[in-house]
């Protein structure tokens, strides 16, 4: 296994140490070490079934690790539930759109800002009087380009719009570390170009980890790339080095890399 690229000495925003995960007898994640610096945009690539989504599920607390440790800003996440990890400043999106279909677009976003703004479980405050929450939700709508669709039921949005909403819900809470799982999957070229711009905009000053299949997206966004194959990170490096890495070429990228990197 390749050694991780040299890291600065400051504490990593997100760190995985010898993380393993088995479902039953099959080991899906087979010892992943990864350190992502604050402010870095990090892409995770790899063939279908490599375990990329599973890795996100482990980081975000959907599943517990079998062995190993995951640290957020130096703090161990062991045993924490998704909502606890979210409160510590990590938010994620889903590969399969995961929104509140019967609520309006605005309500979807507003739900995501309530807890971080401190409204938590309150039932003695009217939503309409929560100026900061409403303002923030409208700002996010503007940012993700869904302002015109504000009062439409989320379930009625087009696919690309739902993907944008998915990202909106993820970033609305102001988390410092953002995980995006295939944000452009299933999009047309122009839609995915827009999505890249959106991701660039909404993750300014944040730490981003994203799973992505589209190589042009990866190479235009990522500071560093990790290649995950059969539950192992076979390389972590800057895009140019990944492109030239023989092991990566052999295991996964082949010719598609040259085509994608225009």
């Amino acid at each position, binding site marked *: 296994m390749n050694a991780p690229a040299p890291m600065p000495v400051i504490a990593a925003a997100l760190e995985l140490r010898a993380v393993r995960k088995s479902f039953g007898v099959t080991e899906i994640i087979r010892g992943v070490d990864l350190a992502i610096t604050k402010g870095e945009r990090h892409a995770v690539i790899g063939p279908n079934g490599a375990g990329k989504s599973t890795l996100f599920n482990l980081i*975000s607390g959907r599943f517990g690790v079998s062995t190993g440790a995951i640290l957020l800003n130096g703090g161990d996440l062991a045993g924490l*539930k*998704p*909502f606890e990890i*979210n*409160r510590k400043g990590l*938010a*994620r999106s*889903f590969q399969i759109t*995961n*929104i*509140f*279909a*019967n*609520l309006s677009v605005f*309500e979807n976003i*507003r*739900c*995501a800002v*309530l*807890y*971080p703004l401190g*409204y*938590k*479980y*309150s*039932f*003695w*405050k*009217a*939503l*309409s*009087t*929560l*100026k900061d929450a409403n303002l923030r939700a409208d700002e996010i709508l503007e940012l993700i380009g869904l302002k015109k669709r504000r009062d439409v039921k989320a379930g009625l949005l087009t696919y690309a719009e739902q993907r944008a909403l998915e990202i909106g*819900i993820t970033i*609305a*809470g102001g988390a410092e570390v953002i995980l995006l799982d295939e944000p452009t999957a299933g999009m047309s070229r122009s839609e995915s170009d827009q999505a890249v711009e959106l991701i660039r905009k909404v993750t300014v000053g944040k730490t981003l980890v994203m799973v992505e299949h589209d190589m042009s997206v990866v190479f235009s966004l990522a500071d560093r790339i990790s290649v995950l194959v059969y539950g192992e990170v076979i390389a972590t490096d800057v895009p140019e080095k990944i492109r030239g890495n023989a092991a990566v070429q052999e295991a996964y990228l082949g010719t598609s890399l040259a085509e994608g990197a225009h």
Partner: protein
Amino acid sequence: MAQGAQKIVFRPLNLARCIIWSGFALLLLVLPLFFNKGFALTLMCQIGTIMIFSLSFNMLLGQSGMLSLGHAVYSGLGAYFAIHMLNLIGKGWLFPVSLLPLVGGLAGALFGVLFGYVTTKKSGTPFAMITLGIGELVFAMSLMFPEFFGGEGGVSSNRIAGEPLFGFITFGPQIQVYYLVAVWLFICTAAMYAFTHTPLGRIANAVRDNPERVEFIGYETQRVRYLVLIISGFFAGIAGGLGAINFEIVSSENVSAIRSGTVLLFTFIGGVPFFFGPMIGAVIFGFFIVVLATITKAWLLYLGLFFVMMVMYCPGGIATLIMMQFPIVKAGRFREIFPSYCLAVAAGLTLLAALVFAVEMIYHLSLEAAAGTTKAFFGYDVEVASATPWLGVALLSGIGAVLFVAARRGISTHWDRIMGDIIRSQTA
């Protein structure tokens, strides 16, 4: 606060809201002018109570996606606590009868804290199963501890107790109970409506839609369910307390699965997706359980048929049926589809008449055989054993079926055309 007040703009929506709420208050105020008979007053008291109960139930089902099969536990235990308090007032305790529903509400909330801790650990079907189990448990307890639950006979009381409110309101006359129910109904409806516009209320909707995602925006779904259940138990308990005052008796029937099932049935008929749906359900409850049950022995059969029809053809309940018309009315095109609706009503009434004749005659033949084969229908004696009335039923069914087909075709063509136009004008 001053800033907050400035932000409130006078939009038509607010105006509509004002009109609706004042209209509701006014309606509650003047209803006894038109229905002042003892029977009607009792009925309205019962409907008002059920409205609070079913609204509290829908806080779980419609707003949070929790199907409770034991909601009567909270109203019933609330009722028990209220009636014991009423007896204590009778013995000289200083507590106003008008605030008894609050005792019921606090008891309901308390048991919400207790039972909800167990039930809300799960969601979906397991939640429903556990609530069913808790319901059975409480029902069994109600028969095991006669000191508190009064055994088979229940606990009875006399609501004319303590100091009269304002010197003259003793709650002896039914009309005074009516206004007590009306005031509590208005307050509870407003409070429960307000709840739907709070952070917890909205997150409850999110939990209903997609509990998994809620966990990734900082909320613990279990905590959301638990809190909503406690609040719902509070309002159910208020309904229980009002029922205790109204009937002056509380028995194990109040905590039974039948009660829990009834509130589910009528909330569903009224319309789960809308806040006011359960209130419609409560009115229909009054019609079936109180009015129809006194007219015919077959009322349960009608209720069953009605429920099945609703589930099959209108799962959103009456409220949805009403709300579906709004875009058409707003577009000013209700007149186009109205004749087809009239035809549908005519078809429905014809088929209903056929059904009622058939059912009543069968009931007469099977259950009242000893009384001979003639049955009185609206003052006419009908010879049930002869062929003529049955031919009449067949004829009515035939006419009804023809009307039904015509109405259905009319509604669907008009509906598709109008909605198509509306959608096109929106996207244009």
